[in-house]
C-alpha cells in the first residue's frame, strides 16, 4: 500500500473526505516519494551498492522537503510543560483530549502534552486521539516519546540508567577509538570530561544510550573481555550521578515520530545534482568532484560539537555528520527545514538530508 492510499483511508475513517488536489500538492508529494526508500526493501538480498546503501538508509527517516508543521507530543507535568515551552507562548487548548493530555502551542507547533508516563501501547491509542481531533495534515499526526520503551526522558534525573562512564582512558586513545567499540544501540549523548589534575586529553568519557534495553545489553558485553579499546579491556560503569544540563533544548528529544525510525546523532547529507553515470569498471576513468568539507563542518559546528565528519559510500557525494549530542543533530535538522534560516538557504535545495544510523547501533555479539 502506498503512502497516498494510506492517507485517503485514514481521512475516510476520520469522516472527512479530503480532496487530495486541494489539500495536498500531489506533484510535490510524488517528488518527495521518488526519493523515499521503501522500508519493505529490507528483506531483499542486496549485493550492489545501490541496494546496500538503500539498506543503510531504510528504516531511517529521510525528511521530505515539503513537510508541514505537525503536532507532536511531549510528556511531563502540566506545570513543567508550560515552563519548558516558554510561558509567554503557551496556551492550553480546549480540545477534547484524555485526562492526562493537554494541548499547548509553541512557535506554531501544536503539542500534545501527556501528564503521565506512557507505554508504547498507550502511545498508539494517543495517536488515534490525535488524528481524530486535529485537522489532517500532510502526514499522520506525530506523537512521542517519554515511554519506558524508548527512555527519551525530559526530566534530567530520570535517565541515569542509560548513562555509562569510562575512566582512565590512556593517552593516544581518542573518542573515535572508544566510540568504535561501543555497540548495542544509538547513543543520546557523548561527553568528554577532562580531569584538571591530569595531562591526558580525554580523561573520562560518559555516554548515554537512547534505549535502556540497549544500554543493558552493552553493559553485559562490556563486562566480557570482548570489549577492548586498542587491545585493553576497560571497565565501564553505570553513571548514576545527577545530570546537570541546560534544559533549553530538551524539548527536541520529544519530537520523535512513532511512524518514523529513530532520530539519531547522525545526519546524512547527499548532494543533489544531475549525475553523469560512468561505468568505472569498463572505462577506467574517474571524476573527482571538488568538495571541501571545511565550510560544511563550520556550518554544523554552530549547533554543537561534532564527533565525526565522514564520507558515506554512495553514488553521489554523500557525507555524514555525527554530533556529540542528539539534540544538536535534531536542532540542525530543524534549522535546515526552517525557511527563515541560513541553513535552509544553504542546504535545503542543494542537499537531501536525513537521520542516519548511529555508528553504535550494532548488536553486541559475544
Amino acid at each position, binding site marked *: 500500500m502506498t503512502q497516498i492510499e494510506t492517507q485517503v483511508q485514514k481521512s475516510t475513517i476520520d469522516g472527512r473526505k479530503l480532496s487530495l488536489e486541494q489539500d495536498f500538492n500531489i506533484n510535490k508529494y510524488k517528488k518527495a516519494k521518488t526519493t523515499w526508500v521503501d522500508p519493505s526493501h529490507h528483506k531483499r538480498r542486496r549485493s550492489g551498492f545501490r541496494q546496500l546503501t538503500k539498506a543503510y538508509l531504510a528504516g531511517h527517516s529521510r525528511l521530505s522537503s515539503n513537510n508541514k508543521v505537525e503536532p507532536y507530543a511531549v510528556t511531563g507535568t502540566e506545570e513543567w510543560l508550560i515552563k519548558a515551552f516558554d510561558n509567554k507562548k503557551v496556551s492550553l487548548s480546549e480540545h477534547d483530549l484524555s485526562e492526562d493530555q493537554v494541548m499547548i502551542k509553541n512557535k506554531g507547533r501544536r503539542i500534545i502534552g501527556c501528564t503521565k508516563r506512557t507505554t508504547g501501547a498507550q502511545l498508539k491509542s494517543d495517536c488515534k486521539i490525535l488524528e481524530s481531533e486535529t485537522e489532517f495534515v500532510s502526514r499522520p499526526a506525530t506523537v512521542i516519546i517519554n515511554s519506558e520503551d524508548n527512555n527519551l526522558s525530559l526530566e534530567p534525573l530520570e535517565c541515569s540508567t542509560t548513562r555509562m562512564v569510562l575512566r582512565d582512558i590512556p593517552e593516544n586513545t581518542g573518542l573515535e577509538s572508544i566510540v568504535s567499540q561501543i555497540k548495542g544501540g544509538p547513543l543520546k549523548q557523548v561527553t568528554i570530561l577532562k580531569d584538571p589534575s591530569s595531562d591526558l586529553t580525554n580523561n573520562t568519557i560518559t555516554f548515554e544510550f537512547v534505549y535502556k534495553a540497549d544500554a543493558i545489553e552493552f553493559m553485559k558485553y562490556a563486562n566480557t573481555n*570482548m570489549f577492548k579499546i586498542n587491545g585493553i579491556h576497560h571497565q565501564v560503569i553505570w553513571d548514576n550521578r545527577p545530570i546537570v544540563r541546560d534544559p533549553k533544548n530538551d524539548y527536541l528529544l520529544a519530537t520523535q515520530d512513532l511512524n518514523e525510525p529513530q532520530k539519531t546523532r547522525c545526519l546524512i547529507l547527499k548532494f543533489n545534482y544531475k549525475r553523469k553515470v560512468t561505468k568505472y569498471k569498463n572505462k577506467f576513468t574517474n571524476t573527482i568532484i571538488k568538495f571541501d568539507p571545511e565550510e560544511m563542518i563550520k556550518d554544523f559546528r554552530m549547533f554543537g560539537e561534532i564527533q565525526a565528519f565522514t564520507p558515506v559510500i554512495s553514488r553521489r557525494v554523500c557525507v555524514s555528520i555525527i554530533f556529540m549530542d542528539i539534540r544538536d543533530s535534531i536542532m540542525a535538522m530543524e534549522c535546515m527545514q526552517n525557511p527563515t534560516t541560513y541553513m535552509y538557504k544553504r542546504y535545503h535545495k542543494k542537499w537531501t538530508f536525513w537521520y542516519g544510523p548511529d555508528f553504535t547501533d550494532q548488536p553486541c555479539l559475544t
Partner: protein
Amino acid sequence: MSKITYSLPLHNNKNLPNQNLVTDASRYNHNKKPRSGISSSGNGLSSHVRNIYTNGTTQFSLPVKYVAIQILGKGSYGTVCSARDVTAKATQNNKEPLLAIKKITNILNREILLKRAIRELKFMKFFQGHKNIVNLIDVELILEKPYDGLYCYQELIDYDLAKVIHSSVQLTEFHIRYFIYQILCGLKYIHSAGVIHRDLKPGNILCTVNGSLKICDFGLARGIEQIAVTAVQQQDITNYVATRWYRAPEIILSRKPYDKSIDMWAVGCILGEFYNRRPLFMGNDSMHQIYQVIKTLGYPPNQLLVEYGSVKAWNLINNNSFSTTEKKDWISVLPGASADAINLMDNLLCWEPDKRISVFEALDHRFVDNVRRNNDEPSCPHGIFDFEYESHLKSMDALKEYLINEISTFRANRK
C-alpha cells in the same frame, strides 16, 4: 540423539549432531571417539549439536546459534559466509546480529597453511580492539571432513575497498584522504608491534557504508625480525608474499630482507587506485609486474639493482627493451589528483625502500592534515609481537597442538 530441523538457506542441508568440536587440547586427544553425553543448554538445544550447510563443494559446520545466510567469497584460503546469531538480541532499532564466518581450509594437510592459520589467529587476538582492524568474535577448529578447518567468527562489514573502487561510487578528494588516513592509522598500530602485513590490498581492507575502514587477513603477516633470515629462506618467503599488483619491487628483485616499507608501497598502490579506479601496476607475472612499474616510475637506479644481487635484477640491468626509461609525471597518470596526493605518491612509490616514508611520516603528511585526529593514532600497547613460538613448532603435530591451545586460550579469555 537430538535432531534439529531448520530451514536452511543453502542446498542439501542436514544436521550433524554430536560433531566433534575441538575447543581444548584434552578433547582434541579424544576426538576420534564420538562423545555420548550431550549437555543441554538453556534453550533446550544440545551444545554439541551443529548444523551443517553445503553449497556445491563448500561445506560449513556451525553451532546451532549461528544460521548461515549466504556465501560472501571464496579464495585459496577457504570460504567466507555471512550468518545470523540467533541467540543475540537485535538492537531496539532492529539491527540484526549478523557476522562473517571465515573458514580456513586445508590447514591440516599443509604445514604452511597451518602456520598461516596460527599466525592469523594470533594477530587477530593481538590487534583486537583497534578501530581500523577487524574484530574477531570467536574461533573454533573442526576436524571432521569435509567440514574441517579453522572457523573464524568476525564482525560483518558491508564492503571491501575493491568493491568500492571498482564500482560507480562517487569518490571525492575528502573520501580518499579519509580512507588513506584510516589505512595509515591501522598500519601504524600493526607496524608498532613489529609486524608487517605483507598482503595489503583493497580486497583486504573492509569498508562500512559510513566510510570506516578495517584491515583484515593477517595470514601473510610476519615479524620484522623474522625476515632477517638466510638468503635461502628468504627466497622461499618471497614466493607467496603479497598479491602481485601490490607487491613492492624489492620483494621480486632483491635477495635481501625486506621491511615495513613493502606495506607503504602497497598503500601507494591503493592511493593511486583511488584516483585511477583501476590497479596502477597490473603485471601478469613477477617480471611483467616490474615492467609495469618501470613504465611509470622509470628504470630503477643501476646501483640499486646491483645491491639487490639477484639474477632478475641483473637481467634488468642488461635489458634495453624499453623505449623510454623516464619517470612519468603523476598528474598524467592520476587525473584529478591534488598536489598533496602527488607528493605523497612520490614518497610512497619509489624504487628505493629506504627513501619510502614510514607510516609515522605518512601520518604527518599534509595530504591527511584535514582529516587527522592527532590524539587518536595509537600504537600497539602490547609492544613487539613475539614470534618466538614459531621456532619451537617443528612438526605438524606440534603446530596442531599449539593451534588448539591458542583457540582454547582465546575462548577462555572472552568471558
